[in-house]
């Protein structure tokens, strides 16, 4: 297939104006509480550091199951996202909780490794028990116009995933234009992605509202054409409750009810959790609790 023909014009000014308008939506009172709990339930609590230890993974898993010891009526988060070598620790810690384990793979975050290694990387994570695989696309190949390579690589990893869900990280911070974001989204979706994801979190800018809007529109257009639903995961850089709610506003108004749940929308974030908790507590008591009362992970 000639993916060059898939290229669609995207008007940058228009995208950014649309986002500016989404940001004027005012979310208050019970609507805000509901949205914050929803956002919490959509979190992929993430730790992707070279210095990650089994203990840190265990700690984050505990937080994933019960985000705050002393607050009630809180949902668990959607998943914990770790490197493949920590998957076993996470699956053990999360057993029976319903919280999924996601693992990055394919030589995350750069994706610069031979295909063989990427397949092995993925298979290892799946065998260790990962429910979800977060792969990265080969941005170098994409920017060089080798779209078939990018497509086939995703399709191959999808196969290696078996029953595990595949999230495809586009690393939009390296894709330069909204048109490229859109094309990469379309290619990933056609190659079998269950989710498309903005960023690794290792590159600036990570997730932004305009980039997410373009990706949501790609998901919607695929749904229009085929009736098939693909999930969305903005990741990296979303730290505040207010921003998270702006993402939910976009999902609500672009894709509607079917996507407003952790099966089809996720936030890749870790610091966001504590801001959500702090804001939720504020809605209950009317004032802000000190951050010292929320565990850092």
């Amino acid at each position, binding site marked *: 297939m000639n993916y060059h023909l898939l290229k*669609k*014009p*995207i008007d940058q000014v*228009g*995208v950014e104006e649309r986002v500016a308008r989404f940001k004027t939506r*005012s979310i208050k009172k019970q609507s*805000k509480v509901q949205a914050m709990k929803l956002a919490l339930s959509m979190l992929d609590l993430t730790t992707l550091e070279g210095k990650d230890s089994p203990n840190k993974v265990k700690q984050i898993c505990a937080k994933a199951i019960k985000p705050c010891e002393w607050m009630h009526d809180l949902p668990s988060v959607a998943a914990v996202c770790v490197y493949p070598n920590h998957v076993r620790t996470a699956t053990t810690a999360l057993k029976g909780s319903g919280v999924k384990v996601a693992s990055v793979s394919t030589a995350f975050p750069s994706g610069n490794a031979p295909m063989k290694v990427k397949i092995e990387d993925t298979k290892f994570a799946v065998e260790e028990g990962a429910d979800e695989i977060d792969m990265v696309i080969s941005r170098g190949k994409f920017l060089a116009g080798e779209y078939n390579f990018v497509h086939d690589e995703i399709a191959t990893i999808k196969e290696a995933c078996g029953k595990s869900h595949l999230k495809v990280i586009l690393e939009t911070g390296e894709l330069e234009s909204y048109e490229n974001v859109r094309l990469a989204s379309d290619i990933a979706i056609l190659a079998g992605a269950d989710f498309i994801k903005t960023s690794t979190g290792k590159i600036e800018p990570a997730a932004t509202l305009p980039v997410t809007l373009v990706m949501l*529109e790609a998901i*919607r257009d695929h749904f229009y054409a085929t009736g098939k639903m693909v999930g969305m995961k903005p990741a990296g850089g979303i730290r505040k409750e207010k921003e998270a709610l702006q993402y939910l506003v976009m999902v609500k108004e672009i894709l509607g009810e*079917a996507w407003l749940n952790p099966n089809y929308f996720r936030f890749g974030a870790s610091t966001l959790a504590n801001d959500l908790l702090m804001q939720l507590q504020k809605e209950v008591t009317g004032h802000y609790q000190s951050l010292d009362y929320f565990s850092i992970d």
Partner: protein
Amino acid sequence: MEKTKTQNKELTSEEQKAEINFKTDWQYAASPESTDHIQLKKKYDLFINGKFVAPAKPKYFDSINPSTEEKIAEVAEADEADVNKAVKAARDAYKGKWSKISASERAKYMFRIARIIQEKARELAVIETMDGGKPIRESRDIDIPLAAAHFFYYAGWADKLNYAVPGKTPKPLGVAGQIIPWNFPLLMAAWKIAPALATGNTVVLKPAETTSLTALKLAEIIQEADLPPGVVNIVTGAGKTGSLIVNHPGVDKIAFTGSTDIGKLIQKSLAGTHKKYTLELGGKAANIIFEDASIDQAVEGIVNGIFFNQGHVCCAGSRLFVQESVFEIVMRKLKDRIATLVVGNPLDKNTDIGAINSKAQLDKISEYHSIGLKEGAECYQPACEVPSKGYWFRPTVFWNVSQASRIVQEEIFGPVLTVQTFRTIQEVVEKANNTPYGLSGGIWTDKGSKIFKVSGELKAGVVWANTFNKFDPTSPFGGYKESGIGREGGLHGLMPYLQY
């Protein structure tokens, strides 16, 4: 051929499956802007010679909140004696002080007015929304900031008029009579007053009878800014008051924004007089979507083009032309977008579409709606609920219409869009220009050369490319054909107030 048909059929059944459900479990809670900070009098007199004075005959009419049908305040109706008084005050102020002080001194007052508008922006936005029915998002983000911007912009021109007309020494005309519409009450007042003051003229302004309140708040601001008495006079009332201003021999220039019918009447009555005039009248703008446009952004432009301010916009993109090859997808996306528009309480910060300005306007829009249905057009309206009290009309799209349809030819001035298709550039340009109006137009394409070609051929005063309804004080605005005479805004907007 047959194969294509089958493919289409398959697609249709998939499309039926693929309905997006916008009735989400998570809803936006009501988020109304508070009204407790606004200061409104129960009764407003006429603003003449720097003071609020009772009308000669004690006649007052009600200003109604169109979203609740409740009375907000009583407003004086100016009669002949009052208009005479206002014109005399304006003349005296022109001769006495305003034409004597330096240009930079004039600018000083205008900057002051602009700053006070900014200071009172929140109050003005709330009053604008209560009095006219437009969403607070629009009055807060567009109307009021733009009104201030007009005063700032024209204040800057006051002492640079010699550069506006190089080689000449421009002079003011004298007294300007200005009649403004109800769709952008404060903004239209600013459009009219700012260039008149910058050029050294004095003003008698009449706001529309359904939306006098922000003009009267502007009168208070003018008092606060210590503008010399009589430089701006604001007389309220209906059409009769307007005609008294138009026909007053002491007025040197008429600036009118409103319907084409009234514009024609004004032009007739001004024929053979010394008065200069500018008319900014109706429109039926073509908004053209080419197949190579960025469709999602174009859909947003369609929505902003026609549903901005409930379609009470003379330059609204009310005739949509979509290239045939993208008609299906554009319609589908447009309907889904319209389904997410929030219709209701204009004071709610999430409201996209507020109330229709008046009962009379609602009746007019409803009539066109039934005309459209009678003409056999297909119609889409979202399933949104509207409040039981007040004047409401759901956003409406008609397709299967032709150039001959009345809803395509006539200005509806409401949230009603007609959609036609086209195949070639020549065809769409002919159709777009086939109207007595020519105020604005829109082009959506990814191709720059197409923008230049089509915009050059459209007979319209403003043509937007890959955007719509963008306003800026630096940009001239005005119409071809029956959409008006003269330009307002920008450098061009100075000229109708000058002799040189």
